């Protein structure tokens, strides 16, 4: 049975009437045209669909949209401040941490969630946190460098 569900996507409040069992990922992509979150496995094992839900990392492919009612959803499209990229986005550019780029939105959002929770992660903590995100181009080395770079910049911002 369809339900009325309110989502706040990248700051915009929107209402959808749909089956609450549908994955949040599909509602974002099909109903709202927000295609930054990607389908990779459909069971929360690759991280390509990662979004932030009320600031916390969430796997949108295995989140029923009904459970996202009234939640603030941030996707890759909502991360930059106008033309100014989020430090994690900028770090991915600066490190060239992109091959095909399909995993990139999920990688960036996972890293953002990490740095929100732990602005000074050790390498081990970064690896542990990011391990749920797969990159099949296997660009892990440069992605790690990007997260390290972003972490050092976030630290600087927080200090100043």
């Amino acid at each position, binding site marked *: 049975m369809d339900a009325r569900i309110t989502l706040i996507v990248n700051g915009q409040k929107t209402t959808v009437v749909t089956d609450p069992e549908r994955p949040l990922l599909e509602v974002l992509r099909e109903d709202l045209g927000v295609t930054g979150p990607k389908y990779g496995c459909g069971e929360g094992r690759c991280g390509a669909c990662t979004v932030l839900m009320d600031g916390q990392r969430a796997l949108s492919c295995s989140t029923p949209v009904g459970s996202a009612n009234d939640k603030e959803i941030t996707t*890759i*499209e909502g991360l930059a401040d106008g033309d100014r990229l989020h430090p994690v986005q900028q770090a991915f550019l600066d490190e060239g941490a992109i091959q095909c780029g399909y995993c990139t939105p999920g990688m960036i959002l996972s890293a953002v969630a990490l740095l929100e929770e732990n602005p000074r992660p050790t390498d081990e903590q970064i690896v542990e946190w*990011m*391990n749920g995100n797969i990159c099949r181009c296997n660009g892990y080395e440069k992605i790690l460098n990007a997260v390290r770079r972003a972490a050092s910049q976030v630290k600087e911002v927080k200090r100043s």
Partner: protein
Amino acid sequence: MIEDTLEMAESPRPDTVKLNRRSFVQLLGTGLLITVTEGVTLGQGRRGGGGRSIAVAARIHINKDGTISVMTGKVEEGQGPRAQLSQAAAEELRVGVDRIRLIMSDTGLVPDDGITAGSRTTPSTVPAVRQGAATARKLLTDLAAKRWKVDPSTLTVSDGSIRNKAIDKTITYADLANSADVEEAFTQSVSSDIALTPVDEWKTMGTSVPRPNSRDIVTGAHKYPSDIVRPNMLYGKILRAPSYGATLESIDLSRAQAMKDVLVVRDGQFVGCAAPSAHTARLALEAVAATASWKTVPQVSSREVHAHLKRNSRGGRPRTKGSVEKAMSDSKKVLSETYEVAYVQHTPMEPRAAVAEWEDGKLTVWTGVDGPQRNQQSLASALGVPSDRVRVIVPDMGGGFGGKHTGEAAEEAARLARAFGRPVAVHWTRAEEFTWAYCRPAAVIECKGGLDAKGSIVAWDFASINPGGSAIDTPYSIPNTSILSAGSDSPLRQGSYRCLGATANNFAREAFMDELAAAAGADPLAFRLAHLENTRIRNVLEAVAKHFDWPRRRRQTTTDVGVGLACGTEKNSVVAACVQVRIDRRRARIKVEHVCEAFECGPIQNPANLLSQVQGCITMGLGPALHEQLQFADGKILNASFAGYLVPRFKDLPTLDIHLMNRTDIPSAGGGETPIIAIAPAIANAVFAATGKRVRSMPMEDALRRVV
């Protein structure tokens, strides 16, 4: 059945494309009008440049705003051609790379540069684009010279401006773009013998130009094939057989037909549903699938697959040198071993995806395939329409690794779109990708070698069953050899994968070389060098041994920590790797802690991108070396998900110490494949160094479990 083992890359079928002047200019923007003589052949021609040439206008378009559109049939899937081909054009046109707008992989707009495979972009397409750009520069310079009534050799070109020093005047490409004589000039063919910029004068090539659309990737603005949406579009789902070889005997479509907003079609074995959401389409398909009855046939399982491949080995005659039989019988020691490789999947992050739209009997598809022109032909033939009524557009896609030569999703979407009269998207699930995409061939490789009294290899017998013939020849100097590449009866659909059979063949050869070295009582490095005349391989092998500090690390081997090395050559590039592994005997785990790799592919065109490719090859190679394998029984894949099929993750990443060797006196070769071939054998050899046990099959953790 070997699908596509290659290759493909070197023999594009040049298409005869009539460019519609109005639509072309609409698509490219205003500026130089393109007029291509009717019937002019588009495409770079065959490898070596001896093929048919194309009009400059089919490759280069000067825009009024000073930007330059460059057209190529190559596909961006993360390996870096968007930057590399932009650099190639910028270099020869003498403009900054930011002026280049690369238009890729759209059969309505671009020449056929052959399928994106076989590391052919660097040796074939880069030269083709450079020739096109250099010819355009020459034609533009000639026109300027004509205007000024001077000899073209008195003019200089930089930053898109042609300068006449004598009268202190310049004219830009954009100025010339408005003139009718440029339009006429660009109908000329690209010159295949035009001088290209020598390596030591490169300004843009040889530098680390980032991927031009990187910003769209990090902001989520880029639209991948699975992100494409068309007005009034439906989402389609296709009925899959429950097992390989099963045929549909009956099905009741009424349950789906009764569902709101659902369309369903059956055409023989093909059954598909479409709905305004993927969720509804999935529910509809599940409803009809529950009513299907199937006739199944017996299938080989992964437990018995190697015996099956060996039993069904067929075709191929060994290539021989000297007399292996006599040399074996004269040998002081003879070793004989068999190596095995499991089936693996490519699992690109973006599974197969397509949107198809019919309009006035013409089909347009947006999809992720390696060969847009090839896919155009196969779609036309599958759908029974002329190929000039099919347009294939490949947006930069989410990975391929040799696994997207075929366009199944495009054909499925086109069938549904035709049946329902609306655009339809078909996005494969991960399970579909694991189950129905072709995979990398499994292999059985039988090696036999004979050593003389001095410990030199005098006889070499190498029989490789099923993986294909890439890198099958030994690079070592051995007087008597017999080398066989045989086919077999593959129970799974198989095809290309990064570096093809070279990974399997190099695994067996380099692991067996280690066994021979041990039998000869020699150090693995010294043993290889003693048999190696190829200076390029020697150079990378010696470099990697030095950087890794091979002698010291080898002395420090313990029962838990071992080191191994391997080298190889394929696709005109050379690689060598040293690795250090740590063995967890209780859990039969192999942790690769450190990889040192040296790679040389001629003059490096984009160092940062080449580094990404080498890092990617090494890390990707860890998967099939250690864990990855498709398990199957009764025609079903038993581990068709990332839960059961373990690809490398952050935790698997070893310390990488990569040395890119820039050799400028030979032509550039591609670098996205060969760096994968040394990693597996180096690991096998390191496992032996630590444990004294040989692991002769990939994935090796399974093999280790059997021996420790």
